């Protein structure tokens, strides 16, 4: 029942904070958020699962009970974690606690609602990563949108309405596409499945005969391919993959810092996590095969095009936002490589990017708190006035560039190594080398931004007195930096459990 406890604490905490007085909401929310963080760390320490959750692996902290019988299909409350989902759960709880800390300074109205929503998001994010029944999973998946919509729409910047609605509608439409496709898949499987439990569906797809029933006059083979494509597109918006990425910079720019931290840190990983869980685990490789080269091409385009867009920006937050598009491209490349290092590296990169982008958004937020601008053209020499915050920003920037012994390097290296030698992906070395050029562009735009904003003679275009950031702004960044370096020096801390869960997926590929 540990996972239920985790969810319950976050949900109840959200409710409590929601009605608490504004004055204490921040501190209360932080205190409450430490409980899920502690539990998840305990889960991490006590993790005894093995294999992949969907492929007959031994789940950890599993619990399953009948919930609703829906015609021929059972909907079960089914949760559990494996080596892929657990690191993401830990990422979620830690990042939430830190995001709450980083909200103390900038959030000064309707605090109780703000912090309540943050905890509510946390609960749903955890739910997304632990749910193993499609229906339960989808509820969490959709429920994440509401609090994020409100966080952007209420506490956001000047164009918050536009950004919030765009975010909500875009990702929601994508979810509908994905939902429809998945339901079609379940119907297509016919009698082979009797519930929405993901392992059962996966088993029917991989070990069973797959889709046998024609639906709407579409033959089973085509139907399977269509479902694969529709689900891929549905998740692609969430990741986001070019060309479905335009909601992201708008949402990030308008979102308050803590919402950006969670958005980039965890929400984007919902997309890549779902791609891994659904598209690349449930479908036999012969279904995926025709799409391998197009997907790899999209991944490379995401990396390079995203990086080029980042290069053109002058808003620090937009730079980091676009660089997420670029980083997620690496993840897609790793997934499609279908090797242990590729898929494992992609999963590692999800965690790593969560930490690094979280750190970057926090650092940019701290500078914004002091200067009330994020435009690199409005400031220079910030290192002079905010040495610690800028120091962390630089460290985060180098993390983003994949500096060795920080987590980003291992994630990228594993992906590159995994995809270079991939036999599943045609022209693998060419795709890999092309995507790798991202490491040059990322250095270009981040260093260019640093040069203009934080170095040079001190100058600020706004009328604010710049002072050093308070400890509760700095401390969470140090925690993140510590984790980034820890994972960079000792990637096996999580890579071992990740590969353990990835192996069965790779084994699906047969002789790969």
């Amino acid at each position, binding site marked *: 029942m540990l996972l239920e406890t985790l969810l319950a604490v976050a949900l109840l905490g959200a409710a409590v904070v929601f009605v608490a007085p504004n004055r204490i909401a921040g501190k209360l929310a932080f205190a409450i958020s430490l409980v899920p963080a502690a539990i998840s760390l305990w889960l991490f320490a006590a993790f005894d699962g093995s294999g992949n959750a969907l492929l007959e692996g031994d789940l950890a902290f599993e619990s399953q009970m009948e919930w609703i019988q829906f015609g021929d299909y059972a909907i079960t409350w089914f949760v559990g974690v494996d080596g892929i989902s657990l690191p993401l759960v830990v990422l979620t709880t830690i990042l939430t606690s830190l995001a709450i800390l980083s909200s103390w300074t900038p959030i000064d109205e309707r605090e109780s609602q703000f912090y309540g929503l943050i905890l509510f998001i946390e609960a749903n994010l955890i739910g997304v990563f632990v749910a193993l029944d499609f229906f339960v999973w989808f509820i969490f998946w959709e429920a994440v949108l509401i609090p994020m919509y409100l966080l952007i729409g209420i506490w956001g910047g000047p164009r918050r309405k536009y950004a919030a609605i765009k975010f909500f509608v875009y990702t929601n439409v994508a979810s509908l596409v994905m939902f429809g496709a998945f339901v079609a898949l379940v119907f297509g499987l016919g009698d082979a499945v009797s519930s929405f439990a993901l392992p059962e569906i996966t088993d029917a797809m991989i070990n069973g005969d797959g889709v046998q029933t024609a639906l709407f006059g579409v033959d089973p083979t085509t139907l399977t391919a269509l479902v694969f494509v529709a689900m891929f597109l549905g998740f692609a918006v969430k990741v986001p993959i070019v060309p479905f990425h335009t909601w992201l910079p708008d949402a990030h720019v308008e979102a308050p810092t803590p919402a950006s931290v969670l958005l980039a840190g965890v929400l984007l990983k919902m997309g890549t996590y779902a791609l891994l869980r659904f598209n690349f685990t449930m479908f036999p490789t012969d279904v995926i095969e025709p799409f391998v080269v197009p997907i790899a091409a999209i991944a490379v385009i995401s990396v390079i095009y995203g990086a080029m867009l980042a290069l053109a920006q002058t808003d620090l937050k937009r730079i980091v936002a676009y660089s997420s598009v670029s980083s997620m491209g690496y993840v897609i490349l790793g997934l499609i490589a279908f090797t242990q290092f590729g898929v494992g590296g992609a999963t590692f990169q999800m965690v790593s990017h969560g930490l690094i982008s979280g750190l970057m958004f926090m650092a940019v937020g701290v500078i914004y708190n002091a200067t009330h601008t994020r435009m690199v053209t409005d400031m220079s020499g910030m290192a002079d006035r905010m040495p610690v915050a800028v120091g962390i920003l630089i460290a985060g920037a180098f993390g983003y560039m994949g500096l060795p012994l920080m987590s980003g390097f291992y994630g990228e290296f594993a992906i590159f190594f995994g995809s270079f030698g991939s036999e599943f992906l045609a022209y693998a070395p060419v795709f890999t*080398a092309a995507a790798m050029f991202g490491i040059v562009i990322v250095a270009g735009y981040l260093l260019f931004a640093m040069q203009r904003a934080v170095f040079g003679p001190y100058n600020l275009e706004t009328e604010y007195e710049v002072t050093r950031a308070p400890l509760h702004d700095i401390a969470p960044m140090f925690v993140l930096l510590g984790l980034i370096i820890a994972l960079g020096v000792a990637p096996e801390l999580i890579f071992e459990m990740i590969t353990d869960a990835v192996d069965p997926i790779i084994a699906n590929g047969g002789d790969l």
Partner: protein
Amino acid sequence: MEGVFDYAPAIALFPLVAFVVVLAFGTYLPKKGALPGIIATGGSLLLSLVMAAAVASGEAYHETLYEWAAGDATSATGVEGVSFTFGLLIDPLAALMLVIVSLVAFLVHVFSLGYMNAEGETGLPRYYAGLGLFTFSMLAFVVADNLLMAFIFFELVGLCSFLLIGFWFRTKSAPSAAKKAFLVTRFGDYFFLIGVVAIAATFGTVAFAGDDSFVTAAETAIDGGDQLFGFDAQTWVTITGLLVLGGVIGKSAQFPLHTWLPDAMEGPTTVSALIHAATMVAAGVYLVARMFGYYALSPTTLAIIAFVGGFTALFAATMGVVKDDIKQVLAYSTISQYGYMMLGLGVGGYVAGVFHLMNHAFFKALLFLGAGAVIVIMHHEQDMWKMGGLKDKAPVTYYTFLAGALALAGIIPFSGFWSKDEILYDALIVGLEEPVIMAAYAMGLLAVFFTGFYTFRMVFLTFHGEPRSEVAEDPHPVGWSIKAPLLVLGVLAVVAGIANLAPVAKLAGVDITFLEHWLDGEYGAIEGLTYTAYGELLAYETSYIGSEQVTVLVAAGLSLLLAFSGAGLAWLLYNKPEPVAHTERLGSAGKVIEDNYYQDEYQVWLAEGLTLPLARAADRFDQTVIDGIVDGTSTASLFGSDRIRRLQTGIVTNYAALIVTGVIVLLLVLGFLGGWF
């Protein structure tokens, strides 16, 4: 002595501890963090000497210490499973390099007391922390026993270089130079990383030494006639070797990625001495030496290395001729000298290349520190035309600088002569058989003339003649923390050549090539990593002009003649009480050289004239076309949604209810269509 290797990790870890201590407490420490750095590098130096002694006593060390990551992957050659580790490889080459790096690092730390602390700089803890982190990374790079670990620390020294070049971040120029340095070397490292990934994916190992090294695996694959990634093994080894070489060219500032080094002079002169002359720039060349067995398998790669080296040596030397800033002259000289090392390695002169690496580390660190002393003396003036007459006012600086200059110019019997001569000799004997190498040799030889010229132009303008400015008449005194490192390096610049008096050995028939024996594993060595072992892999033919002795004399005579001519021309033109500039006499060629052959312009154009506009165009495309479609879709639906916008109440529960209702309705619809009920 085998037990002493247990302490080897401490060589690198001492400076890391100093970094952490200084970063955390530097502001509160006496000397703002200089002392932990001095103690740490002093400790590293002592331990490095112990390691060298252990190697001299016949030992060597190759040990995996830590498994970084491991997993399943089948390499192209069929190796199952791969393990990425951190390990130590202390053989004659590494031991020598350890001593060089820790010695120069130690001396630079001491020198900094006089150079940085005495000047009341702000941000000194940041400076010493950077030096500590750099020394750690560099030493760890030197002892790395595999290519990935080498890459990791190769990148980290790049970070330190960025941080230290940008030390005076409140200026406009330093951050710009720091960015350029990191970006240009990153461009090289891009290829390097592809090379690492390719080698790992090909051979399933990245180890430098041992039975399962990628060098051995490559040899086996070539002998077996394997096909690797669609190429025959020989071609693939060449491709991957060239990819790794990208990193070398970036870091060792070879053409065309040399442009960052002159800009890097924006950093403190101590940093230039340590990082941008003696050690980090040497990392590239060291890497070629470290995996020389791999390059020896590919004659094409070697020839490219030699040609790039020879070309860079000449190309950079010509630019050094017209510079007015003392540090700029030294920067171009550094590029040129690393060109010689590349030339040496490229022609199979493993010993000669490493020999020059060692000598250059000493005499170039000396010259940079000497320039630093001059800058202190001159109250932060770097323009040589404002100097003059410092000879009598700062004798220690002058005579040590002169020793370094004689070594750099390659004047017998100073250290630089012996190693440069050996490189040119090795190039000549191969060049007599291979036209490409002959061309590389010719360029290297011609560069000797320019080297002699710019070196002594610098010496005469700085120290001789009459003082040409007020500060030159009233020099600032320098203390012993500045003079002592100069003296140590000055002695080394004079005598280090004794390590390998190859021409004397060949002419007199005496066995005094100590360095060659050292690198050939006559003391301790790791199997396969010796000069002889590399020689067996090399495919070069050599021949002599007449006999070996005659060739030795011809090579040495030619290079000495050119060195003296260059120095003599400088003496004629600039050793005057009131020297004048002669650059105009070069006409339009002079203009091209002063503008560095427009190398900076085209690279800046690539970044700012091409990539940036392209990025902006992509951004416009993104905003108008891609986002336009998204917004267009929403505008079209706005008409419809206008009717139902009353649903947008802004109340969470309403949204939740809507979503749940929506999901249920959708389920019902699909269920109905699917014949569910």
